[in-house]
């Protein structure tokens, strides 16, 4: 427990978390602090490229082992199954309509790539390595949750199909294309490629992540400010309980697969995080009657800050304790 609290305290006082806290505080105080939309977009492109490229280089450097395919499969199964768990939890904890509950559940099966990026940063700072292909696992976990949500709706007698255009938009959304594409570039070019662009990919990473999380803090703070009365106490509690449940499932998957300490931690983070980029857009198309204020406020205003501040250090500490790694 001391180890967990120590790591949590260290994480809370890191520049990236304090930048996020600054953003939340500024938004809650109604400051006019603002990151221009184009700058935020540019930073997200940089972060996705850097994290994908580094993952590819890691795979090129260490080679592929038999757990790659199993890890991808585990990611897909987790993404498809977690919405069912979330839906069942919401039936108990919340008083949402079937439509809203299914839409919320889809978010908790999918992933937050920003939480993933922040977790890899914490792992690096802790000296823990992880499998480079976890980037590919993250990409594989984006879409299955959406199919599960539509299945949950269809079980209630309201048949919704995912049209081909929506499927294409989900599978080829810019974040996935950039993440997977840069992963393959890193894999193909390997350490030599990293040497050529290291000054751009590695050194500025932490600073850019700080500014990006400042912007995310502003967004989360604005969401919290404008959402008073949207969430009932039960639904609010779900936003904190579900990531812990998801992380436990991710922990089991990581331990069963026998991945590294960092890999187990990343499985926990991916399973604990909730989407707020790809899934909300898919829900607006497939389930337009579902209330976006509920699922966006939960994923962005509750679960994202929870994972970023408390969740990640706890997941890393638990993964370390159970695998024998040392944070």
């Amino acid at each position, binding site marked *: 427990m001391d180890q967990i609290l120590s790591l949590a305290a260290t994480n809370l006082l890191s520049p990236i978390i304090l930048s996020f806290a600054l953003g939340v505080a500024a938004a809650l105080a109604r400051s006019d602090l*603002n990151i221009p*939309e184009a700058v*935020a977009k540019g930073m997200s492109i940089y972060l996705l490229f850097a994290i994908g490229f580094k993952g590819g280089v890691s795979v090129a450097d260490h080679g592929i082992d038999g757990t790659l395919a199993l890890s991808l499969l585990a990611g897909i199964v987790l993404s498809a199954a977690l919405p069912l768990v979330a839906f069942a939890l919401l039936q108990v904890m919340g008083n949402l309509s079937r439509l809203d509950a299914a839409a919320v559940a889809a978010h908790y099966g999918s992933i937050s790539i920003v939480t993933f990026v922040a977790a890899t940063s914490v792992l690096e700072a802790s000296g823990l390595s992880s499998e480079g292909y976890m980037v590919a696992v993250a990409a594989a976990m984006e879409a299955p949750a959406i199919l599960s949500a539509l299945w949950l709706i269809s079980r209630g007698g309201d048949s919704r199909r995912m049209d081909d*255009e929506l499927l294409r938009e989900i599978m080829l*959304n*810019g*974040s996935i294309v950039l993440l997977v594409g840069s992963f393959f570039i890193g894999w193909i070019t390997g350490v030599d490629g990293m040497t050529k662009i290291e000054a751009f990919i590695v050194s500025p990473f932490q600073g850019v992540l700080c500014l990006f999380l400042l*912007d*995310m803090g*502003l*967004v989360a703070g*604005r969401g919290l400010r*404008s959402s008073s009365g949207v969430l009932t106490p039960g639904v609010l509690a779900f936003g904190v309980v579900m990531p812990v449940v998801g992380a436990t499932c991710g922990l089991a998957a990581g331990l069963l697969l026998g991945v590294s300490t960092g890999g187990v931690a990343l499985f926990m983070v991916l399973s604990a995080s909730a989407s*707020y*980029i*790809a899934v*909300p*857009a898919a829900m*607006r*198309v497939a389930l*337009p*009657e579902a209330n*976006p*204020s509920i699922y*966006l406020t939960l994923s*962005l205003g509750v679960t994202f800050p929870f994972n970023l501040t408390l969740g990640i250090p706890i997941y890393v500490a638990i993964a370390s304790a159970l695998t024998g790694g040392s944070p």
Partner: protein
Amino acid sequence: METHKAKRVAIIIEQVMQSRLTDAMSQAGVTGWSVLPVLGGSGSSGEWSREGQVTRGAGMVQVICVVRPDRIDALLEAAFAVVERHIGIVTIGDCEVLRAERF
């Protein structure tokens, strides 16, 4: 100068639905339209602003097109099939254009 009567249709819709709407309009024989960003607003779903949106395709856009009066029904049927279940506003107004052959 001679002018010609036309209909101006303005559809405010979620950005994520934009391509579906313009595809349907194209299939209904509409050959031209303009898309404008909407900065923010307020309606039955509450107040919103384009500022700080992180969700892909979040926010609203306005699709504007001008058609000959005899094409308005086909356009509205195609548009309504797309926007029926979604947040948005469809308005139709009379207008006049200089070059009728373009519409």
